[in-house]
């Protein structure tokens, strides 16, 4: 073996271990240590079906196919308070903790998952509006040693929100003002750019759906200089641009987001001058009310859940400027949050959005197997019915795997 071959082999081996190669786990912050093996456990953040009553729960589900308890809830870790409205979660960069946000009380819960099968509630951050000047925390998103939390509104639940920054163990660092109601965060470190999507204020999303004021919704995405924590560009499109995904390939300059308010998919793209263009990539062909957007690890497919349309859609994005709907999985009443595995082969789906808009009579988690062509088929071996929880029916929302 000559020296060049030897070096190439070593380089290949090293590349396989470098963090840059660990980012194939989709829809998480690129700073998080990636899961590069089949999942063994799933964490589900859920609230009682009787909203405002009972404690929110981090459920631990066995998703190891070889396990005799496959598909069963193994453990339920309760928080010490009620009425929180469990919603989204995020790992810290080192994957040892999960931050779980609550929409109604704005409490932030930190679970220690260093023992992956036995999460423990390590800390509860109370009085978040007073601490941060912000309310309605939506998505915790890891940066090195810290968590950014997109917050919908000001401290009284109205007006524009921002992004709150904490250390991994829950010490407040700073708040960064936004001009809209931040929903979700995506970061591309190569470009020092962060994009936050938007939705409505806390006061609106915690009101009954028929009381939502359309004027309170925002239709903007903010482009931030990540290091400066400053908004450098506002992208204007369709209303309520919820989930956003930046393509995973290193130096990929584009990504997509869904517009819940206009049934559309939008594309954001960094142009040669560093500014971003923003255009509609596709209309979703009927009243879908998209709730979540997931991406395949090879940047070839997007998956869209339809909260109103009760289906999951697969979109082929291999031609980025001309995306097309290629498959649907139907009968998923109020499909909402999804989680795709590191290999792009398994897509877990839950069906509770927020207690204020939920209409499903039954809450569940189902599994779609994904073929190499992006097409979906329900796995009948996996089905979890949350109407039979020991403390009463529950609404499952966000999921994470370990």
């Amino acid at each position, binding site marked *: 073996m000559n020296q060049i071959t*030897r*070096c190439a082999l*070593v*380089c290949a*081996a*090293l*590349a396989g*271990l*470098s*963090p*840059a190669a*660990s980012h194939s786990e989709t829809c998480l912050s*690129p*700073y998080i*240590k990636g899961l590069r093996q089949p999942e063994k456990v799933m964490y589900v953040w859920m609230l009682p079906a009787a909203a405002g009553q009972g404690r929110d729960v981090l459920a631990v589900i066995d998703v190891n196919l070889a396990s005799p308890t496959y598909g069963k809830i193994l453990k339920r870790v309760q928080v010490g308070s009620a009425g929180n409205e469990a919603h989204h979660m995020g790992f810290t*960069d*080192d994957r*040892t903790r999960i931050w779980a946000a609550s929409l109604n009380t704005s409490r932030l819960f930190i679970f220690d998952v*260093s023992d992956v099968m036995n999460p423990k509630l390590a800390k509860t951050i109370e009085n978040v509006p007073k601490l941060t000047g912000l309310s309605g925390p939506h998505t915790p998103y890891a*940066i*090195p*040693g*810290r968590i950014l939390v997109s917050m919908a509104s000001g401290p009284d639940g109205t007006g524009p929100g921002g992004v709150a*920054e904490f*250390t*991994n*163990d829950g*010490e407040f*660092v*700073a708040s*960064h003002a936004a001009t809209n109601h931040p929903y979700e965060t995506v970061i591309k*470190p*190569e*470009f*020092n*750019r962060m994009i936050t999507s938007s939705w409505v204020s806390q006061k609106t999303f915690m009101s009954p759906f028929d009381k939502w004021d359309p004027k309170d919704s925002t239709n903007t995405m903010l482009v931030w*200089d*990540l*290091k*400066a*924590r*400053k908004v450098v560009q506002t992208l204007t499109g369709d209303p309520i641009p919820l989930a956003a995904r930046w393509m995973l390939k*290193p*130096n990929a300059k584009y990504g997509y987001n869904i517009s819940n308010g206009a049934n559309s998919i939008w594309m954001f793209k960094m142009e040669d001058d*560093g500014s971003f263009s923003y255009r509609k990539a596709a209309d979703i062909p009927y009243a879908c009310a998209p709730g979540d957007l997931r991406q395949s690890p090879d940047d070839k497919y997007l998956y869209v859940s339809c909260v109103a349309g009760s289906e999951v859609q697969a979109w082929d994005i291999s031609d980025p400027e001309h995306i097309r709907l290629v498959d649907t999985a139907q009968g998923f009443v109020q499909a909402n949050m999804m989680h795709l595995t590191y290999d792009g082969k398994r897509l877990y789906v839950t069906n509770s959005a927020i207690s204020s808009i939920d209409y499903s009579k039954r809450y569940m988690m189902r599994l779609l197997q994904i073929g190499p062509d992006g097409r979906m088929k329900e796995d009948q071996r996996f089905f979890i019915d949350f109407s039979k929880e020991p403390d009463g029916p529950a609404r499952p929302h966000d999921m994470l795997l370990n």
Partner: protein
Amino acid sequence: MRRLIAGPALACALAAHAAPESAVSANPNLSVIARAPEFTLKDTAGRAVHLSDYRGQVVLLAFIFTTCPGVCPLISTQMSALQAGLKAEGLFPDRAKLVSVTVDPKTDTAEVLSRYARMFRADPAGWSFLREEPERLKPVLKAYDEWTRLLPNTKGWLDHPARVYLVDPKGNIREIYSLAFFNEKQALIDMRVLLAEK
């Protein structure tokens, strides 16, 4: 027994470094994140080094191990480039320091660390490689949230949080970088900004 792999890794790191550069920000937000936990460790000559010895200077603090197959040699390569940049601006070694702490003191003896430092052309006047016996190092690693665990199915390679800390002249952590996305040009700007603070 694990071997120092920095030779081939350095070549790979240099090759990887030829990839497109990350963008930098001229006006970084460097909020106080936390007080930098104090430590006392030993340099490769066996002298005690306290973090507080660097008060009045800005410090870039990296946790590494010499048998690391991936990001550690890359970060050391980038710190070498940063050392050159700081020297060119007249900040190194008097106003800016670089510190590399091994998380694997059993393998990384003082001799091994010295050899590693030479490989990256570390100037001992301002770039220290520190270690301590495992039991004494343990609380320091814990204070910086630097756990280690053996990676399965490897030749004893370690997994650890891939972070680099920037400490200001008052002893506060002002930035935490990811090793994977570390950009020495941004770090140079950040250090310059901290040194310009009154």
